[in-house]
Protein backbone atom coordinates (compact mmCIF):
# COMPACT_ATOMS: atom_id res chain seq x y z
CA UNK A 1 0.00 0.00 0.00
CA UNK A 2 1.30 3.41 -0.99
CA UNK A 3 0.15 5.23 2.13
CA UNK A 4 1.23 3.88 5.51
CA UNK A 5 0.92 5.78 8.79
CA UNK A 6 1.40 4.76 12.41
CA UNK A 7 -1.64 6.72 13.52
CA UNK A 8 -4.58 7.92 11.41
CA UNK A 9 -6.98 10.40 12.98
CA UNK A 10 -10.40 10.69 11.38
CA UNK A 11 -11.74 14.22 11.94
CA UNK A 12 -9.98 17.56 12.36
CA UNK A 13 -12.28 19.19 14.92
CA UNK A 14 -11.46 19.74 18.59
CA UNK A 15 -11.26 15.99 19.31
CA UNK A 16 -8.99 15.16 16.38
CA UNK A 17 -6.72 18.14 17.05
CA UNK A 18 -6.16 17.27 20.71
CA UNK A 19 -5.71 13.57 19.90
CA UNK A 20 -3.11 14.34 17.22
CA UNK A 21 -1.01 16.59 19.46
CA UNK A 22 -1.16 14.14 22.32
CA UNK A 23 -0.16 11.25 20.01
CA UNK A 24 2.82 13.30 18.84
CA UNK A 25 3.90 13.99 22.43
CA UNK A 26 3.73 10.28 23.24
CA UNK A 27 5.42 9.08 20.04
CA UNK A 28 7.83 11.79 18.77
CA UNK A 29 8.87 9.72 15.71
CA UNK A 30 5.48 8.32 14.64
CA UNK A 31 3.97 9.11 11.23
CA UNK A 32 0.64 10.76 11.96
CA UNK A 33 -2.08 11.61 9.43
CA UNK A 34 -5.23 13.64 10.04
CA UNK A 35 -8.19 13.32 7.65
CA UNK A 36 -10.74 16.15 7.52
CA UNK A 37 -13.73 16.41 5.19
CA UNK A 38 -14.04 20.22 5.40
CA UNK A 39 -11.65 22.67 3.74
CA UNK A 40 -10.43 23.91 7.12
CA UNK A 41 -9.55 22.39 10.46
CA UNK A 42 -11.35 23.29 13.68
CA UNK A 43 -14.72 21.66 13.05
CA UNK A 44 -17.75 23.27 14.65
CA UNK A 45 -15.57 25.65 16.70
CA UNK A 46 -15.09 27.82 13.60
CA UNK A 47 -18.74 28.86 13.64
CA UNK A 48 -19.03 29.17 17.43
CA UNK A 49 -17.94 32.80 17.56
CA UNK A 50 -19.29 33.35 21.10
CA UNK A 51 -17.00 33.08 24.10
CA UNK A 52 -16.91 30.73 27.06
CA UNK A 53 -14.52 28.11 25.65
CA UNK A 54 -11.32 27.13 27.41
CA UNK A 55 -12.09 28.20 31.00
CA UNK A 56 -11.00 24.77 32.25
CA UNK A 57 -8.40 23.82 29.65
CA UNK A 58 -6.59 27.14 29.18
CA UNK A 59 -7.81 28.99 32.28
CA UNK A 60 -9.23 31.81 30.15
CA UNK A 61 -12.36 32.57 28.20
CA UNK A 62 -11.88 32.18 24.46
CA UNK A 63 -14.19 32.20 21.46
CA UNK A 64 -14.51 29.01 19.37
CA UNK A 65 -12.17 30.08 16.54
CA UNK A 66 -9.53 31.22 19.06
CA UNK A 67 -9.74 27.90 20.91
CA UNK A 68 -9.32 25.96 17.65
CA UNK A 69 -6.44 28.12 16.45
CA UNK A 70 -4.40 27.38 19.59
CA UNK A 71 -4.36 23.73 18.53
CA UNK A 72 -4.00 24.35 14.79
CA UNK A 73 -0.94 26.54 15.40
CA UNK A 74 0.81 23.61 17.09
CA UNK A 75 0.03 21.07 14.36
CA UNK A 76 2.64 22.18 11.86
CA UNK A 77 5.46 22.26 14.40
CA UNK A 78 4.31 18.79 15.52
CA UNK A 79 4.82 17.53 11.94
CA UNK A 80 1.36 16.09 11.62
CA UNK A 81 0.27 15.56 8.02
CA UNK A 82 -3.18 16.92 7.27
CA UNK A 83 -5.42 16.04 4.33
CA UNK A 84 -8.42 18.36 4.14
CA UNK A 85 -11.28 17.91 1.64
CA UNK A 86 -11.03 14.21 2.42
CA UNK A 87 -13.99 11.98 3.18
CA UNK A 88 -13.45 8.63 4.83
CA UNK A 89 -15.73 5.96 3.34
CA UNK A 90 -14.96 3.07 5.67
CA UNK A 91 -12.25 1.30 7.63
CA UNK A 92 -11.61 -2.36 8.37
CA UNK A 93 -10.43 -4.38 11.36
CA UNK A 94 -7.09 -4.67 9.51
CA UNK A 95 -7.06 -0.87 9.89
CA UNK A 96 -7.17 -0.06 6.20
CA UNK A 97 -8.90 3.32 5.78
CA UNK A 98 -10.69 3.98 2.46
CA UNK A 99 -11.12 7.62 1.60
CA UNK A 100 -11.78 10.02 -1.24
CA UNK A 101 -9.62 13.06 -1.30
CA UNK A 102 -9.91 16.14 -3.53
CA UNK A 103 -6.15 16.18 -4.17
CA UNK A 104 -5.50 12.42 -4.48
CA UNK A 105 -8.73 10.76 -5.60
CA UNK A 106 -9.66 7.39 -4.08
CA UNK A 107 -6.97 6.35 -1.64
CA UNK A 108 -6.36 3.46 0.74
CA UNK A 109 -4.34 4.18 3.87
CA UNK A 110 -2.85 1.49 6.10
CA UNK A 111 -2.93 2.62 9.73
CA UNK A 112 -1.16 1.21 12.77
CA UNK A 113 -3.84 2.70 15.01
CA UNK A 114 -7.00 4.68 14.26
CA UNK A 115 -8.56 7.48 16.30
CA UNK A 116 -12.24 8.12 15.56
CA UNK A 117 -12.97 11.83 16.08
CA UNK A 118 -15.88 12.51 13.71
CA UNK A 119 -18.00 14.52 16.15
CA UNK A 120 -21.77 14.65 16.01
CA UNK A 121 -24.60 16.15 14.01
CA UNK A 122 -27.92 17.70 14.89
CA UNK A 123 -31.30 16.01 15.13
CA UNK A 124 -33.53 17.32 12.36
CA UNK A 125 -37.23 17.85 11.80
CA UNK A 126 -37.50 14.31 10.46
CA UNK A 127 -36.44 12.91 13.83
CA UNK A 128 -39.27 14.79 15.56
CA UNK A 129 -42.16 14.15 13.17
CA UNK A 130 -43.64 17.65 13.50
CA UNK A 131 -46.91 17.73 11.55
CA UNK A 132 -47.66 20.38 8.95
CA UNK A 133 -46.40 21.56 5.58
CA UNK A 134 -42.81 21.37 4.34
CA UNK A 135 -41.89 24.97 3.48
CA UNK A 136 -38.47 26.64 3.38
CA UNK A 137 -37.35 28.32 6.59
CA UNK A 138 -36.84 25.33 8.90
CA UNK A 139 -33.23 24.98 9.99
CA UNK A 140 -31.32 23.21 12.68
CA UNK A 141 -29.75 25.81 14.97
CA UNK A 142 -26.24 24.82 13.93
CA UNK A 143 -27.11 25.11 10.23
CA UNK A 144 -28.47 28.63 10.84
CA UNK A 145 -25.30 29.37 12.81
CA UNK A 146 -23.13 28.36 9.86
CA UNK A 147 -25.23 30.41 7.39
CA UNK A 148 -25.04 33.46 9.62
CA UNK A 149 -21.49 33.28 10.99
CA UNK A 150 -19.54 31.76 8.09
CA UNK A 151 -21.51 32.34 4.89
CA UNK A 152 -22.95 35.71 5.89
CA UNK A 153 -26.68 35.09 5.35
CA UNK A 154 -29.30 35.94 7.95
CA UNK A 155 -31.58 32.87 7.87
CA UNK A 156 -34.79 34.77 8.71
CA UNK A 157 -36.38 37.82 10.30
CA UNK A 158 -39.09 36.46 12.61
CA UNK A 159 -37.99 33.39 14.46
CA UNK A 160 -39.39 30.69 16.74
CA UNK A 161 -36.89 28.28 18.29
CA UNK A 162 -37.86 24.77 19.33
CA UNK A 163 -35.64 23.30 22.03
CA UNK A 164 -33.51 25.14 24.55
CA UNK A 165 -30.18 23.44 23.88
CA UNK A 166 -27.15 25.70 24.03
CA UNK A 167 -26.86 26.22 20.26
CA UNK A 168 -30.51 27.33 20.12
CA UNK A 169 -29.98 29.79 22.96
CA UNK A 170 -26.81 31.16 21.38
CA UNK A 171 -28.63 31.56 18.05
CA UNK A 172 -31.51 33.40 19.77
CA UNK A 173 -29.04 36.09 20.83
CA UNK A 174 -27.09 36.03 17.56
CA UNK A 175 -30.19 36.58 15.43
CA UNK A 176 -31.51 39.29 17.77
CA UNK A 177 -28.20 41.10 17.48
CA UNK A 178 -28.38 40.75 13.68
CA UNK A 179 -31.75 42.52 13.70
CA UNK A 180 -34.16 39.56 13.65
CA UNK A 181 -37.04 39.22 16.07
CA UNK A 182 -36.97 36.02 18.15
CA UNK A 183 -40.50 35.50 19.36
CA UNK A 184 -40.25 32.41 21.50
CA UNK A 185 -38.12 29.51 22.64
CA UNK A 186 -40.32 26.46 23.28
CA UNK A 187 -38.98 23.56 25.36
CA UNK A 188 -40.92 20.31 25.65
CA UNK A 189 -39.23 19.36 28.94
CA UNK A 190 -39.87 21.09 32.29
CA UNK A 191 -36.21 22.20 32.33
CA UNK A 192 -33.60 23.40 29.84
CA UNK A 193 -30.72 21.27 28.64
CA UNK A 194 -28.78 24.51 28.09
CA UNK A 195 -26.50 26.27 30.53
CA UNK A 196 -27.98 28.80 32.98
CA UNK A 197 -25.51 31.33 31.75
CA UNK A 198 -26.91 31.07 28.23
CA UNK A 199 -30.52 31.35 29.41
CA UNK A 200 -29.67 34.57 31.23
CA UNK A 201 -27.29 36.17 28.74
CA UNK A 202 -29.05 35.08 25.54
CA UNK A 203 -32.75 35.07 26.45
CA UNK A 204 -33.33 37.19 29.58
CA UNK A 205 -30.95 39.94 28.38
CA UNK A 206 -32.92 40.21 25.13
CA UNK A 207 -36.44 39.77 26.62
CA UNK A 208 -37.01 36.52 24.69
CA UNK A 209 -39.67 34.33 26.35
CA UNK A 210 -38.83 30.70 27.20
CA UNK A 211 -41.79 28.36 27.68
CA UNK A 212 -41.21 25.01 29.35
CA UNK A 213 -43.61 22.09 28.70
CA UNK A 214 -44.35 23.53 25.25
CA UNK A 215 -43.69 22.22 21.76
CA UNK A 216 -44.42 23.00 18.12
CA UNK A 217 -47.44 20.99 16.97
CA UNK A 218 -47.82 22.34 13.44
CA UNK A 219 -45.83 24.17 10.78
CA UNK A 220 -47.74 26.50 8.43
CA UNK A 221 -46.85 27.95 5.02
CA UNK A 222 -46.48 26.76 1.43
CA UNK A 223 -43.30 28.26 -0.08
CA UNK A 224 -41.94 29.71 3.15
CA UNK A 225 -42.86 29.24 6.80
CA UNK A 226 -45.68 31.66 7.70
CA UNK A 227 -46.10 30.57 11.30
CA UNK A 228 -46.11 27.69 13.76
CA UNK A 229 -48.61 26.37 16.26
CA UNK A 230 -47.24 25.93 19.76
CA UNK A 231 -49.04 23.79 22.35
CA UNK A 232 -48.56 23.06 26.00
CA UNK A 233 -47.74 19.43 26.81
CA UNK A 234 -48.67 17.28 29.75
CA UNK A 235 -45.40 17.01 31.75
CA UNK A 236 -46.11 13.35 32.55
CA UNK A 237 -46.82 12.10 29.02
CA UNK A 238 -45.29 14.97 26.97
CA UNK A 239 -48.42 14.86 24.80
CA UNK A 240 -49.95 18.14 23.60
CA UNK A 241 -52.94 19.33 25.62
CA UNK A 242 -55.96 20.10 23.40
CA UNK A 243 -57.14 23.69 23.63
CA UNK A 244 -53.72 25.17 24.48
CA UNK A 245 -52.74 25.80 20.83
CA UNK A 246 -51.29 29.24 20.12
CA UNK A 247 -50.31 30.58 16.69
CA UNK A 248 -46.97 32.38 16.28
CA UNK A 249 -46.43 34.28 13.05
CA UNK A 250 -42.84 33.69 11.89
CA UNK A 251 -40.76 33.02 8.76
CA UNK A 252 -38.20 30.78 10.43
CA UNK A 253 -38.23 27.79 12.77
CA UNK A 254 -34.93 26.79 14.35
CA UNK A 255 -34.50 23.35 15.90
CA UNK A 256 -32.18 22.83 18.84
CA UNK A 257 -33.33 19.39 19.84
CA UNK A 258 -30.27 17.29 20.46
CA UNK A 259 -27.14 15.91 18.90
CA UNK A 260 -26.34 12.47 17.51
CA UNK A 261 -22.78 11.10 17.41
CA UNK A 262 -21.84 10.53 13.77
CA UNK A 263 -20.97 6.85 13.88
CA UNK A 264 -21.74 5.42 10.43
CA UNK A 265 -18.06 4.50 9.99
CA UNK A 266 -17.87 2.94 13.44
CA UNK A 267 -20.98 0.81 12.91
CA UNK A 268 -19.89 -0.13 9.41
CA UNK A 269 -16.64 -1.52 10.78
CA UNK A 270 -18.52 -3.65 13.30
CA UNK A 271 -17.36 -1.87 16.47
CA UNK A 272 -19.51 -2.60 19.54
CA UNK A 273 -21.87 0.32 20.26
CA UNK A 274 -23.53 1.66 23.41
CA UNK A 275 -27.27 2.15 22.92
CA UNK A 276 -27.47 5.00 25.44
CA UNK A 277 -24.53 7.17 24.31
CA UNK A 278 -24.90 6.20 20.62
CA UNK A 279 -21.13 5.95 20.62
CA UNK A 280 -18.67 3.08 20.86
CA UNK A 281 -18.13 1.06 24.03
CA UNK A 282 -14.64 1.97 25.27
CA UNK A 283 -12.17 1.26 28.07
CA UNK A 284 -10.35 3.93 30.06
CA UNK A 285 -7.86 4.42 27.19
CA UNK A 286 -10.84 5.07 24.89
CA UNK A 287 -10.04 1.89 22.98
CA UNK A 288 -13.12 0.38 21.32
CA UNK A 289 -13.99 -3.32 21.03
CA UNK A 290 -11.77 -3.34 17.92
CA UNK A 291 -8.11 -3.53 18.90
CA UNK A 292 -6.13 -0.45 17.90
CA UNK A 293 -9.25 1.62 17.17
CA UNK A 294 -9.89 4.46 19.62
CA UNK A 295 -12.74 7.01 19.89
CA UNK A 296 -13.01 10.41 21.56
CA UNK A 297 -15.04 13.61 21.69
CA UNK A 298 -18.63 13.96 20.53
CA UNK A 299 -18.48 10.83 18.38
CA UNK A 300 -18.05 8.87 21.61
CA UNK A 301 -20.65 10.72 23.70
CA UNK A 302 -22.03 14.25 23.41
CA UNK A 303 -20.17 16.71 25.63
CA UNK A 304 -21.33 20.12 26.92
CA UNK A 305 -17.83 21.61 27.15
CA UNK A 306 -15.09 21.50 24.54
CA UNK A 307 -12.59 21.48 27.40
CA UNK A 308 -13.77 17.97 28.28
CA UNK A 309 -13.47 16.93 24.63
CA UNK A 310 -9.83 18.07 24.58
CA UNK A 311 -9.03 16.17 27.77
CA UNK A 312 -10.69 12.99 26.60
CA UNK A 313 -9.04 13.17 23.18
CA UNK A 314 -5.60 13.59 24.72
CA UNK A 315 -6.18 10.25 26.47
CA UNK A 316 -7.22 8.56 23.22
CA UNK A 317 -4.36 10.08 21.21
CA UNK A 318 -1.72 8.99 23.70
CA UNK A 319 -3.16 5.48 23.93
CA UNK A 320 -3.30 5.16 20.13
CA UNK A 321 0.36 6.21 19.95
CA UNK A 322 1.36 3.62 22.55
CA UNK A 323 -0.58 0.96 20.66
CA UNK A 324 1.02 1.88 17.35
CA UNK A 325 4.44 1.66 19.01
CA UNK A 326 3.67 -1.86 20.16
CA UNK A 327 2.62 -1.30 23.78
CA UNK A 328 -0.73 -2.99 24.26
CA UNK A 329 -2.79 -2.72 27.42
CA UNK A 330 -3.83 -6.13 28.63
CA UNK A 331 -5.40 -7.42 31.78
CA UNK A 332 -8.64 -8.40 33.41
CA UNK A 333 -11.56 -6.34 32.03
CA UNK A 334 -14.27 -5.07 34.39
CA UNK A 335 -17.61 -3.55 33.39
CA UNK A 336 -18.86 -0.13 34.49
CA UNK A 337 -22.63 -0.14 34.92
CA UNK A 338 -25.01 2.78 35.42
CA UNK A 339 -28.27 2.52 37.36
CA UNK A 340 -30.75 4.28 39.63
CA UNK A 341 -30.75 7.78 38.16
CA UNK A 342 -27.45 7.53 36.29
CA UNK A 343 -28.11 7.41 32.56
CA UNK A 344 -24.66 6.32 31.51
CA UNK A 345 -21.09 6.22 32.76
CA UNK A 346 -17.96 6.27 30.62
CA UNK A 347 -15.62 4.42 30.14
CA UNK A 348 -17.92 1.42 30.04
CA UNK A 349 -14.98 -0.92 30.68
CA UNK A 350 -11.89 -0.83 32.82
CA UNK A 351 -8.75 -2.80 32.04
CA UNK A 352 -7.21 -3.75 35.39
CA UNK A 353 -3.51 -3.32 36.01
CA UNK A 354 -2.93 0.41 36.51
CA UNK A 355 -2.70 1.74 40.03
CA UNK A 356 -3.30 5.43 39.32
CA UNK A 357 -6.33 7.69 39.30
CA UNK A 358 -9.20 7.06 36.90
CA UNK A 359 -11.70 9.71 35.81
CA UNK A 360 -15.22 8.47 35.17
CA UNK A 361 -17.73 10.71 33.38
CA UNK A 362 -21.47 10.30 33.73
CA UNK A 363 -24.86 11.92 33.25
CA UNK A 364 -28.00 11.69 35.37
CA UNK A 365 -31.41 10.97 33.79
CA UNK A 366 -33.41 13.85 35.36
CA UNK A 367 -32.86 16.89 37.61
CA UNK A 368 -32.10 15.94 41.24
CA UNK A 369 -31.67 18.10 44.35
CA UNK A 370 -29.32 16.86 47.09
CA UNK A 371 -28.59 13.43 45.63
CA UNK A 372 -25.59 11.37 46.62
CA UNK A 373 -23.38 9.74 43.97
CA UNK A 374 -22.10 6.28 44.80
CA UNK A 375 -19.75 3.86 43.13
CA UNK A 376 -20.04 0.27 44.30
CA UNK A 377 -17.72 -2.65 43.64
CA UNK A 378 -19.45 -5.76 44.95
CA UNK A 379 -20.43 -4.68 48.48
CA UNK A 380 -17.55 -2.19 48.77
CA UNK A 381 -18.32 1.53 48.42
CA UNK A 382 -15.50 3.01 46.32
CA UNK A 383 -16.86 6.54 46.17
CA UNK A 384 -19.67 8.47 47.78
CA UNK A 385 -20.35 12.16 47.52
CA UNK A 386 -23.31 14.46 48.15
CA UNK A 387 -24.21 16.99 45.49
CA UNK A 388 -26.42 20.06 45.74
CA UNK A 389 -27.91 19.69 42.32
CA UNK A 390 -27.49 17.43 39.28
CA UNK A 391 -29.10 17.93 35.89
CA UNK A 392 -28.97 15.91 32.65
CA UNK A 393 -27.50 18.94 30.88
CA UNK A 394 -24.28 18.91 32.90
CA UNK A 395 -21.82 16.08 32.48
CA UNK A 396 -20.36 15.01 35.82
CA UNK A 397 -16.87 13.75 36.54
CA UNK A 398 -15.47 11.79 39.45
CA UNK A 399 -12.03 10.44 40.14
CA UNK A 400 -11.62 6.87 41.39
CA UNK A 401 -8.59 5.12 42.83
CA UNK A 402 -8.01 2.39 40.29
CA UNK A 403 -6.15 0.16 42.70
CA UNK A 404 -9.42 -0.38 44.60
CA UNK A 405 -11.29 -1.72 41.57
CA UNK A 406 -11.28 -5.51 41.85
CA UNK A 407 -14.43 -6.33 39.88
CA UNK A 408 -17.35 -4.82 37.96
CA UNK A 409 -18.41 -1.44 39.33
CA UNK A 410 -21.80 0.29 39.47
CA UNK A 411 -22.38 4.03 39.37
CA UNK A 412 -25.69 5.05 40.99
CA UNK A 413 -27.52 7.82 42.79
CA UNK A 414 -28.90 7.65 46.29
CA UNK A 415 -31.82 10.00 45.56
Amino acid at each position, binding site marked *: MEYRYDIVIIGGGPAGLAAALSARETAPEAKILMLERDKKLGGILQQC*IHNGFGLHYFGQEL*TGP*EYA*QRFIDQLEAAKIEVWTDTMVLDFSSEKVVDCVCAARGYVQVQAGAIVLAMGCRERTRGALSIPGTRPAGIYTAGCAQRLNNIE*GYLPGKKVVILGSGDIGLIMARRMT*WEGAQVKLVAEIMPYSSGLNRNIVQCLVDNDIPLKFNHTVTAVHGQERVTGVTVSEVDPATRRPIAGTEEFYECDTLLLSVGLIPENELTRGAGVEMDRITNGAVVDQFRQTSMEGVFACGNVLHVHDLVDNVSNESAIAGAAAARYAMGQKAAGQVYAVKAENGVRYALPQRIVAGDAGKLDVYFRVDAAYRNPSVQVLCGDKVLYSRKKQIMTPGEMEKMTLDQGLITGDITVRLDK
Partner: protein
Amino acid sequence: MELTCIVCPMGCRITVEKVDGRLHVSGNTCKRGEKYALQESVCPMRTLTTLVRVRGGEGPLCPVKTREAIPKAMLEEALGVVKGVCVDAPVKIGDVVVKNIAGTGVDLVATANRERR
Protein backbone atom coordinates in the same frame (compact mmCIF):
# COMPACT_ATOMS: atom_id res chain seq x y z
CA MET B 1 -34.40 43.38 41.39
CA GLU B 2 -34.72 39.66 40.83
CA LEU B 3 -32.17 37.64 38.89
CA THR B 4 -30.97 34.11 38.21
CA CYS B 5 -27.42 33.44 39.31
CA ILE B 6 -25.17 32.07 36.56
CA VAL B 7 -22.12 31.28 38.69
CA CYS B 8 -22.95 27.55 38.96
CA PRO B 9 -25.66 25.07 37.85
CA MET B 10 -27.72 25.73 41.01
CA GLY B 11 -29.21 28.81 39.32
CA CYS B 12 -30.28 30.47 42.59
CA ARG B 13 -33.07 33.06 42.35
CA ILE B 14 -31.45 36.10 43.92
CA THR B 15 -33.13 39.29 45.12
CA VAL B 16 -31.24 42.56 45.42
CA GLU B 17 -32.95 45.31 47.43
CA LYS B 18 -31.99 48.72 48.74
CA VAL B 19 -32.24 48.65 52.54
CA ASP B 20 -31.38 51.91 54.36
CA GLY B 21 -29.50 53.15 51.31
CA ARG B 22 -27.37 49.98 51.04
CA LEU B 23 -27.75 47.08 48.63
CA HIS B 24 -28.90 43.89 50.29
CA VAL B 25 -28.59 40.50 48.55
CA SER B 26 -30.78 37.55 49.48
CA GLY B 27 -31.58 34.13 48.01
CA ASN B 28 -27.95 33.36 47.20
CA THR B 29 -26.29 30.30 48.71
CA CYS B 30 -22.67 31.35 48.32
CA LYS B 31 -20.34 34.34 48.36
CA ARG B 32 -19.73 34.22 44.61
CA GLY B 33 -23.47 34.57 44.03
CA GLU B 34 -23.53 37.73 46.16
CA LYS B 35 -20.67 39.25 44.18
CA TYR B 36 -22.35 38.42 40.87
CA ALA B 37 -25.70 39.86 42.02
CA LEU B 38 -24.09 43.11 43.21
CA GLN B 39 -22.27 43.56 39.88
CA GLU B 40 -25.47 42.81 37.97
CA SER B 41 -27.45 45.35 39.96
CA VAL B 42 -24.82 48.11 39.74
CA CYS B 43 -23.45 47.67 36.21
CA PRO B 44 -23.95 44.36 34.38
CA MET B 45 -21.03 43.62 32.07
CA ARG B 46 -21.01 41.50 28.88
CA THR B 47 -18.42 40.52 26.29
CA LEU B 48 -19.67 41.36 22.81
CA THR B 49 -18.90 38.69 20.21
CA THR B 50 -20.03 39.39 16.67
CA LEU B 51 -18.87 39.61 13.03
CA VAL B 52 -17.41 42.23 10.70
CA ARG B 53 -17.20 42.21 6.92
CA VAL B 54 -13.88 41.32 5.26
CA ARG B 55 -12.69 42.57 1.85
CA GLY B 56 -10.51 40.22 -0.21
CA GLY B 57 -10.53 37.40 2.35
CA GLU B 58 -11.29 33.66 2.20
CA GLY B 59 -14.84 34.26 3.39
CA PRO B 60 -17.13 37.30 3.67
CA LEU B 61 -16.83 37.64 7.46
CA CYS B 62 -14.40 37.66 10.35
CA PRO B 63 -15.50 37.04 13.95
CA VAL B 64 -14.61 39.71 16.55
CA LYS B 65 -14.99 40.34 20.28
CA THR B 66 -14.51 43.11 22.78
CA ARG B 67 -11.19 42.38 24.46
CA GLU B 68 -12.91 42.76 27.83
CA ALA B 69 -16.51 42.90 28.96
CA ILE B 70 -18.31 46.20 28.38
CA PRO B 71 -21.39 47.57 30.15
CA LYS B 72 -24.51 45.73 28.97
CA ALA B 73 -26.15 49.08 28.31
CA MET B 74 -23.49 49.80 25.66
CA LEU B 75 -24.06 46.60 23.62
CA GLU B 76 -26.60 48.15 21.27
CA GLU B 77 -24.45 51.16 20.47
CA ALA B 78 -21.41 48.93 19.95
CA LEU B 79 -23.39 46.68 17.58
CA GLY B 80 -24.38 49.77 15.62
CA VAL B 81 -20.71 50.70 15.18
CA VAL B 82 -19.81 47.14 14.10
CA LYS B 83 -22.46 47.19 11.36
CA GLY B 84 -20.55 49.73 9.30
CA VAL B 85 -17.11 48.14 9.72
CA CYS B 86 -15.30 46.41 6.86
CA VAL B 87 -11.68 45.29 7.18
CA ASP B 88 -9.15 44.27 4.54
CA ALA B 89 -7.63 40.77 4.54
CA PRO B 90 -5.27 39.52 5.84
CA VAL B 91 -6.55 39.64 9.41
CA LYS B 92 -4.76 38.00 12.35
CA ILE B 93 -6.21 36.92 15.70
CA GLY B 94 -5.88 39.81 18.13
CA ASP B 95 -5.72 42.55 15.45
CA VAL B 96 -7.58 45.65 16.64
CA VAL B 97 -10.60 46.14 14.39
CA VAL B 98 -12.18 49.10 16.21
CA LYS B 99 -10.30 51.06 18.85
CA ASN B 100 -12.25 52.12 21.95
CA ILE B 101 -15.59 50.88 20.64
CA ALA B 102 -18.55 53.17 21.40
CA GLY B 103 -16.36 55.07 23.89
CA THR B 104 -16.18 52.14 26.29
CA GLY B 105 -12.39 52.26 26.45
CA VAL B 106 -12.32 48.65 25.19
CA ASP B 107 -10.98 47.58 21.78
CA LEU B 108 -12.81 45.28 19.37
CA VAL B 109 -10.36 42.59 18.20
CA ALA B 110 -10.38 39.82 15.59
CA THR B 111 -10.87 36.27 16.92
CA ALA B 112 -9.87 34.39 13.75
CA ASN B 113 -7.25 34.58 11.02
CA ARG B 114 -8.40 35.51 7.52
CA GLU B 115 -5.86 35.02 4.74
CA ARG B 116 -5.93 37.08 1.56
CA ARG B 117 -7.80 35.24 -1.17
